[in-house]
């Protein structure tokens, strides 16, 4: 069975759409990978798969193998440079310039199976259920430290099938639990509360709440505006007695990184979350090469997720 060699399976859930489930999943995966874990990302949002776009692998196709699918690789494991030279490894020029190591990262999504990126997947419940089951049983993940499962909004077919299948096929030790994503405004919180109740009813452990889109830092004057208010996620976490993992502001540079693949560059004197962002030397015009995961280390959100992931890993592995 394909889940056998996976150490931990974590779900990313939210009752509300567009709060950043896929964006949080992406960043959790990149950060876990940067901390040296091997990571898989499974996208079960069947009618609106976003994961391929986030990792910049929209044109990739899934390969068939006997008995299942081979997930699409985003990058392979890479050892840190000093470790490499210590081991006497001599690698190609491109790889030698890597300052930090990272674990491997693979993705699986329905987006890879579509002939056309604009094609609609118009499926009713039973078909979606079958697909979710197949995703869980027929993908050759190999050995993974973490499998992150990105979900569609709501508490319906995909979620029920996912939880049911995991209960049957994964051991209790493998099921790490769920990360809940919300935005700060009350409209989103009220839907997310429903998701927490869903987890309670189905016995899914809640690893914590991430408040996304908390504030926007104006790139012109560095003023932080709470576009969707602030603090709602923390209050909700307290109310339901679940851990609060942190607030993530909107960073246009992260969006640019995803959409255009440009390494984040911040104007002089930008202060995000109490820390000054370095205005690194990568001016426009300088060739922008490298893996997504390396570029991500320049993003202001990386330190936030780094802390969050450490907290999560601590909670999961103890």
């Amino acid at each position, binding site marked *: 069975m394909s889940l056998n060699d996976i150490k931990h399976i974590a779900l990313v859930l939210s*009752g509300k759409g567009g709060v950043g489930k896929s964006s949080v999943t992406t960043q959790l995966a990149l950060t876990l990978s940067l901390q040296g874990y091997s990571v898989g990302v499974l996208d079960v949002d069947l009618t609106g798969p976003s994961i391929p776009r986030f990792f910049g692998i929209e044109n990739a196709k899934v390969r068939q193998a006997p008995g299942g699918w081979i997930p699409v690789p985003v990058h392979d494991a890479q050892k840190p440079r000093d470790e490499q030279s210590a081991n006497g490894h001599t690698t190609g020029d491109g790889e030698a310039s890597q300052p930090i190591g990272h674990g491997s990262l693979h993705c699986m999504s329905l987006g890879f199976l579509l002939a056309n990126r604009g094609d609609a997947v*118009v499926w009713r*419940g*039973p*078909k979606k259920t079958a697909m979710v089951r197949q995703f869980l049983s027929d993908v050759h993940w190999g050995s993974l430290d973490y499998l992150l499962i990105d979900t569609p*909004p709501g508490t319906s077919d995909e979620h029920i099938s996912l939880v049911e299948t995991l209960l049957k096929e994964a051991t209790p030790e493998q099921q790490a639990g769920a990360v809940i994503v919300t935005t700060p405004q009350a*409209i989103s919180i009220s839907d997310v509360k429903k998701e927490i109740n869903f987890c309670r009813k189905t016995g899914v452990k809640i690893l914590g709440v991430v408040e996304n889109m908390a504030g926007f830092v104006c790139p012109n004057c560095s003023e932080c*505006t709470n576009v969707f208010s602030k603090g709602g996620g923390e209050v909700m976490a307290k109310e339901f007695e679940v851990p609060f993992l942190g607030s993530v502001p909107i960073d*246009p540079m992260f969006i640019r990184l995803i959409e255009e693949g440009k390494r984040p560059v911040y104007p002089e004197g930008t202060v995000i979350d109490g820390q000054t962002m370095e205005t690194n030397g990568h001016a426009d015009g300088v060739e922008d090469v490298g893996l997504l995961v390396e570029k991500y280390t320049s993003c202001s959100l990386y330190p936030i997720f780094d802390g969050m992931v450490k907290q999560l890993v601590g909670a999961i592995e103890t």
Partner: protein
Amino acid sequence: MAPSLEEPLLQSVDSALTSATQKAPSLVAPEPEHCPGPESQQAGKGDACAGCPNQAICASAPKGPDPDIPIITRRLAGIKHKLLVLSGKGGVGKSTFTTMLAHAFASNPANVVGIMDTDICGPSIPKMMGVDDETIHVSSTGWEPVWVSENLGVMSVQFMLPNRDDAVIWRGPKKNGLIKQFLKDVEWGEMDYLVVDTPPGTSDEHLSVNSYLKESGVDGAVLITTPQEVSLLDVRKEIDFCRKAGIRILGLVENMSGFVCPKCTHTSEIFRATTGGGRRLAKEMGISFLGAVPLDSRIGMACDYGESFFDNFPDSPTCAALKEVVRNVGKEMGVKPEDVLGEA
């Protein structure tokens, strides 16, 4: 008696409207993967039916179009315009736009407006309308929508939940049943506009709404997107869905396009339109572009408190942009511009 989520749901509304034939077959097992649908012509005969425990039940069930559809058509006969608000992507502002559209239509006192919230798992409309504590009243003619103001009624699953935060953990068929009931058992009465808010995606809810409303005629769908490609990608799928399902697309609205910093009034594109945004997508797909609505943090606030953004912040540039969009929607539906907003 207030309607509850426990089955069986209210059937006794009008005995003339009910008959034994309209019952969907009750299945003994969940539908298999390639189930042709228990109500379809192929029920019990398809390839997937071989070996299915439901086969005999489906095969003997009455065939043909859903007998409830004429009832729905009769129910909705008094509604002049019906429109859907769709988007493949979540959180782009479908519900916000639905409420805005409804408030805008209702600002003309001559209009009567209804909102039907088909997002069963994440109903947002009641909160945005400030009526999330209400319950549905049942009269002899059917369920009464919850009235926000004189001329603005709302129907949502939220009104049926015993606790506000309860999760509705339902699979497709149950959701379809409730949507049918919203159309069949709700006393919508004489209305000028019925705006149908939908959940994200292209699945059960969308198929059902479309098939139930086809007969009574839908004016069309308004699609909502945000400027970035991640969202456009899903909206492209929704356009594909509309084309396949034969739903007329009234046009595309780009929401959250640009944010004006309250301190330095610098406009920044939070969600950068790296691929041309909604305008280019509309052009590419040959549908009309209804307008771009900038982000205003006060909209979120107005929604959280269930107030009308139009009434409270009429001077906001977002408000002007929205009015323009509403006028365009009216134009696409063939409504006289002066009737839409009640302004000369």
